[in-house]
């Protein structure tokens, strides 16, 4: 890809984030120890350590390599066959060579001409209606 391989994020940034995470854990432990020994809540340390833990975890999650899904979704495509004379209708899986208005034989009910009426893919609805 381009000139040589794409380099990853600098080790420096990963080190900074890991150091931040370690420090915040130690600070949290100190805050807990202060509370246990002295009965005082070290508010500053607690807030700093919890927020820095959250920030470090968030940054690490952002940087982690996600597995890329490179497989393309297999589409289910259907062919609708209809008689030109009566109301006979048949739905089957799409086959290569099918096209709309192709004649595909005689109707088993009235011996009329069977045509491919439509070809479409089924879509699984992922989105829920929000009512907007």
């Amino acid at each position, binding site marked *: 890809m381009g000139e040589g391989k794409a380099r990853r994020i600098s080790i420096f940034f990963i080190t900074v984030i890991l150091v931040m995470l370690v*420090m915040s854990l130690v600070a949290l432990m100190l805050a807990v120890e202060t509370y246990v020994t002295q009965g005082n809540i070290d508010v500053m340390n607690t807030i700093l350590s919890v927020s820095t833990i959250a920030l470090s975890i968030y940054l690490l999650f952002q940087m982690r390599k996600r597995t890329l899904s490179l497989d*393309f979704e297999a589409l289910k495509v259907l062919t609708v066959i209809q008689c030109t004379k009566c109301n006979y209708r048949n739905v089957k899986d799409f086959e290569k060579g099918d096209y709309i*208005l192709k004649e595909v034989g005689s109707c088993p009910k009235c011996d009329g001409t069977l045509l491919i009426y439509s070809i479409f893919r089924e879509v699984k609805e992922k989105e829920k209606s929000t009512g907007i």
Partner: protein
Amino acid sequence: MFTENLAPNIQQPLTQDVMSWIFQLIWILAFIIIWIYGQRIQTALMLREIEGSLFKLKAMRDKGRQIAISTIKEIGKPTEDPTARVDRLLEHVDIGPVSLDPTGIIRRLEHIINVRDFRLKDEIRHMAPQADETQINNLTNLVEAALALNQIYKIVRHYYLMGKKTLSFYIILQIQMILPLIMRESEAFARALKAFTLGQPIGDGAGALVAARLMHGKEKRLIAQDTVVSEVDIEGRKAYVIKAKGPGGNVGKPGEAIKQILEENEGKVALIIIIDAAQKLEGEKPGEVVEGVGVAIGGPGVDKYKVEEVAAKYGVPLSAVLIKEGIEDVISTMRKEIVDGVEESIKRIKRLIRENTKEGDTVIIAGIGNTIGIAQ
């Protein structure tokens, strides 16, 4: 004795205070680093996101190339390996006409488009000598989809590498902001590969399907390049129904066809109705049908210009019937909602004809779109 007991108590708090001060200092240093290098960290994260998408784009590009080559070999049975030709085609460039002097620009653009279409089909014919006309058209569409994927990949890669070299936050931000839209479009092109390989109708063919339904069973004639017309009686009016010639992947020349019919009838046409697929807005349902006024023909504008010119010349009203679909549906295999939209469009066309014309009038109905998988 008192001080001896006191000493350990004093030392413990002191040690804790020193540790606390050290940690607070380190905290402050850490925040200063984030404050100074924060943008650099953000830039690195954005580059990482683009890199991930770039891997996916590369995979889609490679898949498009591979499908194009294998399909040409399967259908066309070439005597020599078409790989080198396909690779050349994927790097194909179209140079538009100069617009400094816009006089005659439509004519010049049309010439370039015609040469381009001819050149592309000619290359496909060379690569696939055993393919028939329908297969040639479908292979042309397939190569165009692969070409689009290649172009998208190269453009995103260009911005990614430029961003990496310059570490400019704003260069990277430009591509990062529109990356979700780019990925959506690329995935649509990737799905199109399958549709073009198998000759399945795509969402863009909605207009063509409307015309096919109206003209089925009637006599057809070739009116323009890759374009057929049929005379159909609708609600007591004489309707000229136009569509691209299928079932191969074609868009035809609907502009030229409408112009010819108008000239043949000396402008005595009561109404022109044009049906096409239109991009839906988020929140709209695919297959929704809307009506409007104007020439609903997409593309570079050559056909649209021709229809507008000739309709204005003769004072013929223009109506548009649009079937809404998303970008992911336009070049993928047609979905059921769009087929339902086609049925609804036919009802709308009949209503438009009933309400806006009288019996004995002549109307033109043009179904616009890629007619792959749709005969007539």
